[in-house]
């Protein structure tokens, strides 16, 4: 497959981790307890670590002199191709956990499958990230169970969050042009193959958490095509502020 499409495919994976990492980073110092605050920041840093590997690879593939920072900080909103799920704001702890939970289960299966890619760099990144993501999935699933099977209030809040975020789950499996090309080349993950397992795993946790799986017929999409929710612009202005104000700045 050509390099431009491969870069697009890589960004499709990397942007999810970048934007979710940024969302979690917003919670630094605001976690409900010190321990959970640190745990969520750890996850954020894991995701940023993975993002760097993807962006470095994308920078290496690109014809011009792009660096990882160009991909992270200097694109416009329409050029980010993350799913809508990960850009949703931190409304409350239940909402943050539900968003994490719905993403982690997808992320784990995606990386697991990506280990069979024909692209060696992607295989290496998948192998390295998989241990981290296994832990993320354990963390968020445990919390879904705790909140669901906790007090009346925690159950109400986590159920509301799951209900609200469920409409973004279908987009996880959608395929862009670049995705289709990557799949055809044996590089990309065929998301149809992991969708069944995803629903099965998520349902099992919800059941254990005594929560209801939402029944929805309409799903929301757009992020993968660069059409984002109203929350995205605020997130980007926060994230890009430094690079936009002091172009080329370094630590």
């Amino acid at each position: 497959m050509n390099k431009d499409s491969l870069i697009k495919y890589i960004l499709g994976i990397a942007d999810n981790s970048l934007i979710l990492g940024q969302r979690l980073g917003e919670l630094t110092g605001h976690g409900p307890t010190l321990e959970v605050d640190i745990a969520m920041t750890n996850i954020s840093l894991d995701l940023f670590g993975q993002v760097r590997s993807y962006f470095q690879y994308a920078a290496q593939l690109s014809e011009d002199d792009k660096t990882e920072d160009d991909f992270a900080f200097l694109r416009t909103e329409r050029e980010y191709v993350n799913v809508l799920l990960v850009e949703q704001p931190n409304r409350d702890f239940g909402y943050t956990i539900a968003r994490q939970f719905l993403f982690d289960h997808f992320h784990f299966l995606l990386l697991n499958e990506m280990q069979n890619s024909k692209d060696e760099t992607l295989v290496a990144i998948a192998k390295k990230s998989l241990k981290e993501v296994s832990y993320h999935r354990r963390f968020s699933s445990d919390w879904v169970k705790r909140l669901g099977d906790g007090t009346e209030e925690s159950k109400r809040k986590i159920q509301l969050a799951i209900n609200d975020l469920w409409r973004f789950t279908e987009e996880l499996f959608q395929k862009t042009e670049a995705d289709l090309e990557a799949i055809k080349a044996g590089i990309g993950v065929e998301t149809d193959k992991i969708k069944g397992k995803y629903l099965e795993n998520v349902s099992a946790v919800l059941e254990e958490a005594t929560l209801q799986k939402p029944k929805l017929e309409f799903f929301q999409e757009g992020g993968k095509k660069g059409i984002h929710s109203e929350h995205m612009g605020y997130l980007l202005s926060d994230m890009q502020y430094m690079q936009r104000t002091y172009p080329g700045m370094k630590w």
Partner: protein
Amino acid sequence: MSDKKKNWPLWEVFVRSKNGLEHRHFGSLHAADEEMALENARDVYTRRSEGVSIWVVESKHIKASNPDENGEMFEPAADKVYRHPTFYDLPDEVKHM
């Protein structure tokens, strides 16, 4: 503080930094139960690869000596110089003593 704001119980964390070494006390944290204590310990104390094994124990299970009794507990040991093996000449070859 009202009951609703009650903190989770306190746990003591012990981490083995390398295989072959003993678990050492690293600190304490709050958690609702054993599982959460273990996960919190992992996140709070071993995120820079400080450990290969973690023990957690709820702090209330630790019986601690009373500082008011320090006199009878510890002072008798301090005044008997013959209790310390300080009267031997150690050969230079013996290290780590």
